[in-house]
């Protein structure tokens, strides 16, 4: 019995999580150690607390989590409404409750609650998943995500809203959504991006989309209709772009050419690229990074923590961190595949897609591949709400491993 008790632990997730946490703590230590702040000690305290929570959660049977998932979801929606009224405004967004000197972000809790509720919805059938290829079921599933997104947009918190939206397709794909539908949804984004870059890119993207659509060999009228939709969307990109907040426009502009605004929105990108690039193959050594130590990057311990890895531990360190994240994501996807419990299977895909999205946006931003969207690097960025929320996700991922043979 006792042996079984420990046997079910997902050692891959546990060890890799601990490794990433350690790297994150080292990075926060380095980024803050000349500033006299107590971020390091706060983060390490909550990391230890979070690991405990993660382990406890990994023992909770899926049935219990599934049953309570709708209640969590409703609670999360209520909190998201309350934060609009009673939240604390920090840098323009009302995303935080201030409790006893700590900021608590209800949107972090809502991430988990939304995935669980959506998973419960998709798996609460007698056999197999709900057929999300049916428009009604598809829209119902989307509604689970759209409701919190609407509330989070009101804060307004663009980055977190995108995180929520990012999980829809992977989760529905896992639940059986046809690749054709996914392509129909994704293609306008590709075309729009092309349109944003210029006329030539717009035309190239349209041709590409047309070719792939033909390869699916569906009804020719449907294919033509989708192509027209893509064309219209690509054309209206400009109008939409003008509707964005000026700072968001600048951020997008600065992605493609950071030098247009070297002291404004491009500043972080330039400085973080310089920091990472100057790290070279092996890095400048722990606490030796001049960019990190001279604080060229403001608040580096939050969204730009990856720069510190790049500068002080070089290419080797940067790639190693990426590999650790890849292992976590692959392990979660594999748990999902192995799990006979459909609820946890979907939930794990949700969690892995969220971790993946955070990773791509955050790291992409520091190396100049993605726009500056303020979302944290999972388990590494300073921030208690985000840290605990990722540890809870991994805890549930570990329970999927433990109970993989239970229906």
């Amino acid at each position, binding site marked *: 019995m006792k042996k079984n008790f420990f046997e079910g632990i997902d050692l891959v997730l546990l060890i890799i999580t601990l490794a990433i946490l350690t790297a994150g703590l080292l990075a926060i230590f380095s980024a803050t150690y000349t500033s006299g702040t107590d971020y390091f000690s706060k983060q390490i305290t909550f990391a230890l607390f979070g690991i405990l929570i993660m382990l406890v959660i990994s023992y909770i049977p899926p049935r219990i989590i599934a049953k309570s998932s709708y209640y969590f979801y409703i609670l999360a929606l209520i909190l998201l409404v309350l934060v609009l009224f009673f939240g604390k405004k920090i840098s323009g967004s009302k995303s935080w409750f201030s409790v006893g000197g700590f900021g608590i972000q209800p949107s972090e809790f809502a991430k988990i609650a939304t995935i669980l509720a959506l998973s419960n919805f998709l798996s609460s059938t007698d056999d197999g998943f709900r057929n999300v290829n049916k428009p009604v079921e598809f829209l119902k599933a989307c509604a689970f995500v759209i409701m919190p997104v609407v509330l989070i947009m009101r804060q307004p918190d663009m980055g977190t809203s995108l995180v929520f939206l990012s999980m829809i397709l992977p989760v529905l794909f896992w639940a059986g959504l046809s690749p054709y539908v996914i392509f129909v949804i994704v293609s306008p984004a590709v075309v729009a991006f092309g349109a944003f870059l210029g006329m030539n890119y717009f035309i190239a993207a349209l041709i590409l989309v047309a070719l792939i659509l033909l390869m699916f060999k569906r009804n020719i009228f449907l294919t033509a209709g989708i192509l027209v939709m893509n064309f219209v969307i690509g054309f209206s990109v400009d109008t939409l772009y003008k509707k964005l907040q000026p700072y968001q426009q600048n951020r997008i502009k600065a992605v493609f050419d950071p030098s247009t605004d070297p002291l404004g929105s491009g500043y972080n990108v330039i400085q973080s690229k310089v920091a990472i690039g100057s790290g070279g193959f092996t890095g400048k050594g722990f606490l030796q990074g001049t960019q990190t130590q001279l604080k060229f990057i403001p608040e580096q311990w939050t969204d730009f923590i990856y720069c510190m890895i*790049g500068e002080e531990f070089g290419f080797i360190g940067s*790639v190693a961190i990426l590999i650790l994240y890849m292992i976590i994501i692959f392990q979660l996807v594999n748990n999902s595949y192995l799990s006979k419990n459909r609820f946890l299977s979907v939930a794990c895909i949700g969690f892995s897609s969220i971790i993946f999205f955070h990773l791509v946006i955050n790291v992409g931003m520091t190396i100049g591949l993605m726009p500056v969207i303020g979302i944290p690097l999972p388990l590494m960025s300073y921030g208690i709400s985000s840290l605990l929320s990722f540890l809870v996700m991994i805890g549930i991922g570990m329970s999927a491993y433990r109970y993989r043979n239970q229906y």
Partner: protein
Amino acid sequence: MEPEKRKYAIYAFCLIVFFAFVIRLAYLQLFSTEELTKESNKNSVKTITLTPPRGLMYDRNGKILVDNKPSYTVTITPSQFDKNNLNEISSVLEIQPEILMENIKSIKGTNKFNPAKIKRDVDFKVISFIAENKERLSGVDYQIEAIRYYPNNFHAAHSFGYASEITPKQLEKQMGDYYNQGDVVGSSGLELNYENYLKGVKGYKFITVDVKGREIGGLNEGKNDIPPVNGSDLILSMDKDLQEYAEKLMNDKRGAIIAVDPHNGEILCFVSKPDFDVSVFAGKLDQKVYSALANDPDKPLFNRVTQTKYPPGSTWKMMMSLSAMAADIITPVSTIACGGSFTFGNRTFEDHGAYGNINVTRAIEVSANVFYYKLGLQLGIDNYNKYGKMFGFGMKTGIDIPNETSGLLPSREYLDKRYGENKWTQGLMVSLGIGQGELGVSPVQMVAYTASIAMNGLYCQPHFVSKIKNSITNAEEFVKFEQRRIDMPQKYYDAVKKGMYLVVNGSGTAQAVKNSEFVLSGKTGTAQNSSGNNHSWFVGFAPFDDPKIAICVLGENAGWGATFAAPIAAALMVRYLGGSGYEVEGDLKIVNGVPD
């Protein structure tokens, strides 16, 4: 699509992104390293905070009172500092090596690549030593900063207050995050009260620095720099010469002087002695010096003008006269019989003379106690409190420096609380009638009251600052202070003022200070003190017909009002009005006083 295929589709998607990132990282870290390292070494932007000099203070005639002077601050940049030089530096700076090491480490808000301020206001000899040995003493440098300079030979310590390096406690308590370690902040007096005007606004300079934090040059030719805004200057109503003379008169004595322009409450001079030399706090607040001052039995840090609450003695008699007339107990001409003493219950209250039937004017002139014993009884505590409040007693005057006392103006509630309900007798009113007993006033309250009598009821909030000179526009903005009218028939004020006139110019208690050039008027007072010699009071104004100055002088344990306070007040009023005054150099000639 079966689950296994879906799993591999997800794996493939992740791997594509992963390899894209690895390629990007390789591009940055393996193929652009040289270029980006150069970038990192040479073209890193650092923000330097520029602290503007504090605003200055001028007197009413534009003469400088509080100035700035350059001073040298030794800095150490921890990352460049060679610990082998520790002992040498510590002996040059006269700081113990361990303390120096602590200081270098503990500076918050900076980092080891930035210079940390180690010692302010350093001697020029030390600076030339550092400059000569610059090569050898790496990391040791100096900055030129503005610190307070007081060019006059008087202190005015309680008025100006001091501006010192911010303490860790102040740093923690500050609202917002304007101040950093090493900043100077106004901590008392006008420096504290007008901190927001005096401090100015910090500016920022962006410089490019190399890998060691060394400056390479300005960024973008300084186009992005934000220049600091100098602090605004304060134009005080203080008269520099009068202040200097007043401090000389009070030298080595204990007490307070405050003089105002009765038309608007502008403070002309303000002395609290003993005091201290504020320039010792110009750099860093030296804890040793500060605690020596704080523990001095003569209490030099205590502001005797705004913080003392002594009974006013006979200087209260104008207050009683006006209250009794306003309450219809007496008229300006009605008389009261004044024998040599007054018996209430089984207690007899003495007077220093018998004056027969006298009116209120005569009562003030000779300071007849029996007159006011009787008025005190008839007025009663409620009227006593009501009229006292009208003249600003029992509350703060609102003078523009911090930590003023409200004093003590007794009320029925107060006495009920102090003695128990119905446990106190009217006998208390007898003493209160002559300004003794449980009544506490401060010199600043007294001068505002005296000025309001001089101005027939115009009560002005006493204040130092008349104008603030905006450092950007150079415009002088007037500062608004309160004025109000204490409504009473003019004949009441006339009767009281006549009495004050006769105190000096008739057969009154201060006839010794009568002046041939200017018509002075006033009232002496002696506050009985159970724990030592009596306190000497004088309040007055001049010239009688067109008051230009109102004054209050308090001498702690200095005896009768006529002995100490009256001559000093007279000398100051005459000096301010432009007369030759009294030839008072060093010690003031003490006149033969009379009791009041």
